[in-house]
Every structure is written in C-alpha cells, then in structure tokens.
C-alpha cells in the first residue's frame, strides 16, 4: 500500500487546459474522493495517476518514487472503469486471472488467488460464466475483483457506481467501503455525487474548472468551505448566500445585514465591497421574535425535517427545520442564525474570508 503525492500537476489537451497546477497528498490507506461537476478535470487527474494520460508538467510520487512519465504497467496501480471494461471475449475466471497472467504468476497460484478473491466478493458461483450475461452488480464485482486480485499499491476508481441503478448503488457503496476497510488499500475515487463523496470518503478534493477548490475531510469541507463553489456544491440543499455590500474590519464579530447586526465568528481579515453571508439551511431557525425577518414562500416536507424557502431582504433562503414546527406560507417570521457556523465570502473572488471558524482549514487548504 502506498502514499501518493501530487505536485503541481497540469494537463493540457491542445489549447484546452484540463487540469491547472494541482497539488494534494493521498495518505497510505486513505479512501480519497475526487469530487466535482463533469468536465472539471477529476477523471483526467485520476487517469494521470494511473498512467493512462501523461501530465504536461508536474510530478506524481508513489511511495516516494516519481512515476508521472511511466507507462501504467510499471506503476502497479489498479483501475476500475465506470463502464467496467470487462474483456468481453473471456469468462469471469479469465477476466480475473488476466492481470496475474501478465505478471507470469504460476497457474496453481493464480487459481488459489482467484478462489480467494471470488470468495471475498461472493462471485464464486459465476466464475465460469461469460461476462456478457451478468447483471450490473455482478459485473461491478468482477471489475473490482480484477482490480484487487493482484494486490496493487493503489486503486483508482472512475465513478464505479455510476452505471448502477440508484437502489443498488447504495448497497454497492457500502460493500465498497467495507472492502476498503478490510483491505486498507489506498483508494482514489472519482465521483460527481457529493453525497457519495461525503458518505464514503476519508478525504475529499473538490475540483472545478480544472482547479482544486478545496482539499480536506468531509467535515472540513462541509463546515468550512473555502470557496463559494464548494459551499454551493456540497450539501443538499446547498449553503445559503445572503448578499450584501459593506465593510468588515479585522477582528469584527458582527456584520451589518440590511441594518441588522448579525453575529459571526471572529474575522481574521478585513474586507469591503460585495460580500456574502453564507449559512447552511440547518443553521437557520425560525421564531416569533427577532429583527431579521423573512416571508415563507414554500415548504417541503421531508419526514423528520422540512425545508422552508423564505424571501429575505438579501435574497432567497432555505431553512431546514424540524417537521413538528409549523410554518405557514405567506407568514412573516424572524430568522436566527447559528453564529459560530457562519462563513463570509468575498463575492468578487469567491473565496471565504478567514475567521476563527475556518482558520486552520484555510491555512493548509
């Protein structure tokens, strides 16, 4: 198993810049998520680690060894493709043995290894079937089997659950995570599904437009987004942005929103101009008394909670509140924000302003 370091990696396809200088480190045994909307460069990054694309510049270290210009066969990295890419002319057993045969492993050893892996994945009874007739889940298991069978240094997975039905996906993601915990293998996993990333990942890199926006644990990324893009991309519904114009001093603990002074974490940098007050829906509560008010537009019932959409002087806002609490459409209610959880952004740069809340995260982000 291995530690992977990405340093200033960059990839251009002709005039198109797919990945802008990116750096991050994947620790040994980590389940690492590359998250971002389609076309953001996450798959290209994954393919560069695996060797299917060569970076235009920058270095990739696998266990301290620079591998960025080596062919994939020399890297000892396994790859699980979104479309599985099982060899269609071979049966399940041959698909699994393919990577072992290429290493020149003796036959008896190959057989034992396949027994072991098919046992782990529960595909013993389909070993002699052609891959064409398998169900989506079984194909996924065979694709995983082909990856784990040769004990590679690291696994690359390119949206491996993308081709499965929603129902089965849930099940498979648990299986995947359990498999990872059992083998403790360094895994890099590409997804555009923020829920999947939060659920399964030890660490997440959020990419957008070829740039790494933020790198951290799911909690860090959710609680202290470094950019407005991350704040918007993570969470459902996403973070509310209340836009306002004003000035902030270094050390401020309150901001002036439409005449109301709202508490925020202690600011560590001054700013002025177009600013954004970012608050997660679950950090908004409704009450009778208060000076910052909004009008209820719609309510969505979600079982234990409900999502209330409100119209405020600084734009639309969604609040996640207990479903026991009543909210009537058209009602004018007071809004309270959980001050320690607020993030302020500079709208022109899209970056979070440094505060006592995100100080540590932004320092190395």
């Amino acid at each position, binding site marked *: 198993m291995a530690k992977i370091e990405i340093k200033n990696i960059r990839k251009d396809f002709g005039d198109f810049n797919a990945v802008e200088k990116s750096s991050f480190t994947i620790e040994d045994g980590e389940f690492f998520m590359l998250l971002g909307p389609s076309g953001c460069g996450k798959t290209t990054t994954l393919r560069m680690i695996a060797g299917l694309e060569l970076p235009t510049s920058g270095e990739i270290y696998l266990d301290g060894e620079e591998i960025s210009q080596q062919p994939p066969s020399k890297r000892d990295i*396994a790859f699980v*493709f979104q*479309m599985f*890419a099982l060899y269609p002319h071979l049966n399940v057993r041959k698909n699994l043995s393919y990577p072992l045969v290429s290493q020149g492993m003796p036959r008896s050893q190959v057989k034992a290894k396949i027994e072991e892996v098919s046992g782990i994945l529960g595909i013993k009874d389909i070993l002699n079937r052609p891959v064409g007739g398998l169900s989506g889940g079984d194909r996924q298991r065979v694709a995983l089997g082909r990856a784990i069978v040769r004990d590679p240094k690291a696994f690359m997975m390119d949206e491996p659950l993308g081709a499965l039905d929603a129902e089965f996906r849930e099940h498979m993601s648990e299986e995947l995570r359990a498999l990872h915990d059992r083998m403790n293998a360094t895994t890099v996993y590409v997804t555009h599904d923020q829920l999947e990333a939060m659920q399964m990942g030890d660490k997440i890199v959020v990419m957008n437009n070829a740039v790494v926006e933020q790198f951290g644990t799911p909690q860090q990324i959710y609680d202290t987004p470094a950019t407005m893009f991350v704040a918007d991309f993570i969470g459902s519904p996403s973070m509310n942005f209340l836009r306002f114009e004003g000035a902030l001093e270094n050390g401020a603990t309150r901001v002036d929103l439409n005449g109301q002074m709202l508490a925020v974490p202690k600011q560590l940098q001054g700013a002025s101009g177009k600013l954004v007050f970012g608050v997660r829906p679950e950090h908004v509560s409704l009450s009778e008394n208060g000076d910052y008010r909004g009008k209820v537009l719609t309510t969505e019932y979600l079982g234990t909670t409900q999502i209330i959409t409100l119209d405020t002087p600084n734009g639309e806002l969604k609040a996640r509140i207990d479903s026991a609490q009543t909210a009537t459409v058209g009602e004018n209610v007071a809004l309270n924000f959980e001050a320690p959880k607020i993030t302020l952004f500079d709208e022109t740069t899209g970056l979070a302003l440094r505060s006592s809340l995100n100080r540590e995260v932004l320092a190395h982000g």
Partner: protein
Amino acid sequence: MSSFSVTEPSARSKWFAGTLVILYALITMVPLAWIMLTGFKSPSDAISYPPKIVFEPTLEGYVNLFTTRTRQTPEFLAANPPEKWYEEIVREYDMVIAGPSKFGERFLNSVIIGFGSTFLSIFLGTLAAYAFSRFKIPLADDLLFFILSTRMMPPIAVAIPIFLMYRQLGLSDTHLGMILLYTGVNISLAVWLLKGFIDEIPLEYEEAALIDGYTRFQAFYKVVLPQAATGIASTAIFCLIFAWNEYAFAVLLTSGTAQTAPPFIPTIIGVGGLDWPAVAAGATIFLLPVMIFTILLRKHLLRGITFGAVRK
C-alpha cells in the same frame, strides 16, 4: 402468454417471412445449381433443347477438365485397352489421355494469389486501421480520403499504366505481382471497414489491459484483435471474393506461370466446340474455396461477441 406481443412475431408472419426467404434463396441458387448439374452432363445433354433436368450423370466434364486428350487410330485403340475408369470415358470418343491439363496449376495459382493478397490486405489493413482509430495522426482525415480515392474509379481504368509498370518492373505474370495488385485494390476497403469495426471497440478495454500490466502491442493483440474478429472475418471474405473472382487484370497481366483459374476456364476447348460440361466442372470446383472459407468464418459473421460487455 398473451396472444399479442410487441417483440415476438405471430406464427403467421413468421411462416410468411420464412416462405419468402426460402423462395428467394431458391431463386438465387438456380444458376448455381445449373452450373453444378451441367458439370455432370454429357456434352450433348448440356446443349440439348429443351434443357434436360433429368439426365444420366457422367464425370466426362471433370475428366476433360483435368486432362488433355488425343485422337488415335482404331489400331492403336485396339492394341491398348483402357485401364482406368477415366480412360474408358474418353475412349467412347476414340481418344486417349495424353496427360494432365493445366487446370490444377491454375487453380493452385488462384489459391496462392487469392489467399496471399487477402492475408496481406488484412494484415496491413488491421494495423493501419488501428493506427487511424487510436493514434493522433497528422492529416489523418486527408490520408483516409487519399486511401479511399483509389476506389473512386474502376481499377481497370488504370490497366494500361499498370501493364506498362509491371512490364518494366518484371512483375508481369508473377505471383508476387498479382498479390501486390490485388492487395493494392483491396487495402483501401480493408482499412475503411476495419477502422469502423475498431472504432466500435471501447478504448477502456485496452486501457484495462494496459493497467493489468500489458504493453500496448499485447493489448492490441490480446484484447483488440479478438474483438475485431467479426470485422476481420467479414473484411477477409470481401477481399478474398474480389481477388478470387478478378478476371480483367488476370487476363491482361498473366498468361502462364501466374495465370489464375478465371482466365483459364474459358480456354477449355472440347471436341468441335466449347466443352460446356468441362467449363461447368471448372466453375464448380472454382466456387468451392470461397464457399468453404465463408462457411468457416460464418460463426464470426453471425456472432456479436462484444454484446453486453460494456453497458451503453
């Protein structure tokens, strides 16, 4: 089961479709059957009017095809009674067998030139098609167009330059010359057909093989080739059929050592006119290799082996 299904045709429409297909097959097979039957007729039966469908079969045509014969005096015939069954057949015409005909040699030429050029076309075509399909080649579209442009006129239109060129190069009436010629004509078709087939094979398979520790060439050889088998088989059949049946260039460029069967068969002259049964026998034997080749590759033509392995 319900009586109506969207995917399953009704028994009546199946029966109707089946009848149509059988009827069409029968009609297309009539000339073929006629040639094969004529090969077993006697010369007089072959030209009788109205045509005979029921006749007494004889191997005369085949004997005449494979032998050369001479007429002999009654004294000579009486002194040398026929020994073999085929000698008896020619004896009816007061003839004896002088030796084998050139048909065997010509047929072998056809096999060498036909299969040789097919192999060469497929070999070069597959490599070129793979390169066009997978690699970034400067001016790839223009090159593909140039390759195809060799098919934009009938090959025979350039017969005279080719004839002169071959005479200069000493390629006239050689096996190599004919193989090169047919390969040249076939290769554009092969590259285009095979490129289409290889384009259809998802890149992920090769990438998976690269990841699994194989080199680019191994990935091509072990993963792409088996999946392109269907395309290779059908392209090979097209190439073989062209090279095998080609007549005009064969007449023009070959006369002896490298002459193929098509220009040879019409030269079979019998006693007092064209020996139709011998010609028909030659045509029948000539048909067989392509038929066998097609039947052998039929499995690949019909089976969509990549079905279902990649979810689309």
